[in-house]
């Protein structure tokens, strides 16, 4: 028995790596501790379940929210009764839509501003100002313009990611040594060639970092926008649930929000950033 356990543990160690395993186990300890405390709270009722719901209720909320939902097909077709998956999809849809529209626009404007000194002189202060009116402060005006709903939340998210993206790609283009641009021009390259072969690759690390940052800020702004001026989405879900004192649904929503954010950041944006910096980042800089 003991030999089997040791063999198993060594094989696991070999496959994952000792250090990684150690980190994983160590990192799991506080989570387990927290879950135990949570469970103990339910058992001993230190805080009433109105404030801290039992763990079972939080998972039960999935079933309550997905009641009458006809399997996977119902969830995908966004049937009316699948409220949890509907809210997840509508938040994600907005994120994707805002990313598809906002990121290229921001990059394009950023490159233009980075290329042209006079343009940047005027666009930069606007960018600074727009960035410092954080996305959230736009919500009331957006409600006045677009009413409560899809457009408002989309606008807030677009606004947040556009300006961050704009700023980052502008700084990225500015950081490129003039020599590269001049050498391409000397060898007979056109303006388009300079953009394609110098500005875009040169600013790539900065652009990707900006992308990661803007998605982070955008996600936060989106949740806030959905709370105040939305009619669907995860932010709307937790806000309405808290108004009805359904704390288990709020907990569920918060957990889903952070898991979605962590997953996209950890497994998509961070590796992308690392890869880009490795691939494009080591641009030699003349001194």
């Amino acid at each position: 028995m003991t030999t089997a356990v040791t063999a198993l543990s060594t094989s696991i160690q070999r496959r994952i790596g000792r250090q990684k395993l150690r980190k994983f186990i160590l990192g799991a300890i506080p989570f387990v501790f927290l879950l135990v405390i949570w469970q103990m709270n339910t058992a001993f009722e230190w805080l009433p379940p109105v404030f801290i719901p039992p763990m079972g209720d939080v998972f039960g909320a999935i079933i309550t929210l997905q009641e009458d939902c006809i399997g996977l097909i119902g969830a995908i077709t966004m049937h009316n009764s699948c409220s949890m998956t509907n809210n997840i999809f509508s938040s994600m849809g907005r994120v994707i839509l805002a990313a598809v529209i906002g990121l290229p626009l921001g990059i394009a404007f950023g490159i233009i501003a980075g290329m042209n000194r006079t343009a940047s002189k005027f666009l930069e202060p606007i960018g600074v100002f727009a960035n410092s009116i954080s996305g959230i402060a736009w919500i009331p005006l957006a409600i006045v313009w677009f009413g409560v709903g899809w457009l408002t939340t989309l606008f807030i998210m677009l606004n947040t990611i556009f300006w961050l993206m704009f700023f980052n790609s502008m700084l990225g283009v500015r950081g490129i040594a003039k020599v590269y641009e001049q050498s391409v021009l000397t060898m007979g390259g056109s303006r388009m060639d300079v953009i394609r072969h110098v500005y875009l690759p040169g600013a790539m690390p900065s652009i990707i970092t900006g992308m990661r940052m803007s998605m982070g800020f955008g996600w936060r702004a989106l949740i806030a926008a959905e709370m105040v001026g939305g009619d669907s989405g995860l932010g709307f879900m937790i806000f309405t649930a808290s108004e009805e004192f359904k704390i288990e649904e709020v907990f569920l929503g918060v957990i889903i929000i952070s898991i979605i954010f962590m997953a996209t950041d950890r497994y998509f944006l961070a590796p992308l950033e690392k890869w880009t910096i490795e691939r494009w980042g080591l641009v030699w800089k003349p001194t």
Partner: protein
Amino acid sequence: MQSKSKGPSLAWRFQRLLQIDAMNLVILIIGVYIVWSIISALIDNPARYLPSPIAVALSSVDMLYKGLLPSYFGDTLMRLISGSIIGLAVGIPFGLVLGINRTVADMFHPIMNFFQSVSGIAIFPIVVIWWGNSDKTIFAVILYTAFFPIAFNVLSGVREIPIRYISAARTLGASRFQVIKDVLLPGAMPHIATGSRLSIGFAWRAVIAGEMLAGQQGLGWMIFTGQDADRTAEVVLGMMLIGVTWIILDHYLLRPFEADTIERWGLVQR
């Protein structure tokens, strides 16, 4: 150690602030003013959708006269200052303590990562059930948002200090406390500065959002009720105030502070 700062003096910085592209800024402001006036003159019902700059200015005069603007502004600023001071005061020692021991740091890194990605605003619906629409709720949200960036930064700052500095200090007979005071704290200083700026930035957003949601007087509340009561001029005014305040805070207080700190403490040779 000499305490003489090599960075530019405050007076010099102030002079530069006055010189920087002042002409450009003036042209830009005039341009924005003209475009804004034209748009608001062309659309129907500008009072609702986009009040003209003059209307916004008039509303600010009105609110100043009633004494509402200074009081809202003061409330918001007070919340930001007290919230971020408490957040930093809690977060810096916390990060330091976690960072001292490598095992402890490895242990707490993932859970802090998890809680950091629960944005402070998402925590609001929970806190509001606990304490209702009160100042307490806003403070909880501000503290939550301000705490994690600084604690996280201090933690990684302490961990990045090469172990040999600590070993060297220990070999020379430094006590645990001396190691913290002379090695860990100065070594983590650049990270502390960066983290503080980040924390205060997040706290600022949290203040605005918290006031909007919890309905406590302040700038966020002002723009939110302005929208409810169809006083769009106040909304625009509030937004501009929020933007200008943050620019002043960030560019002329926090960024120079961060740059000075990095200049003073950041040149740790490897």
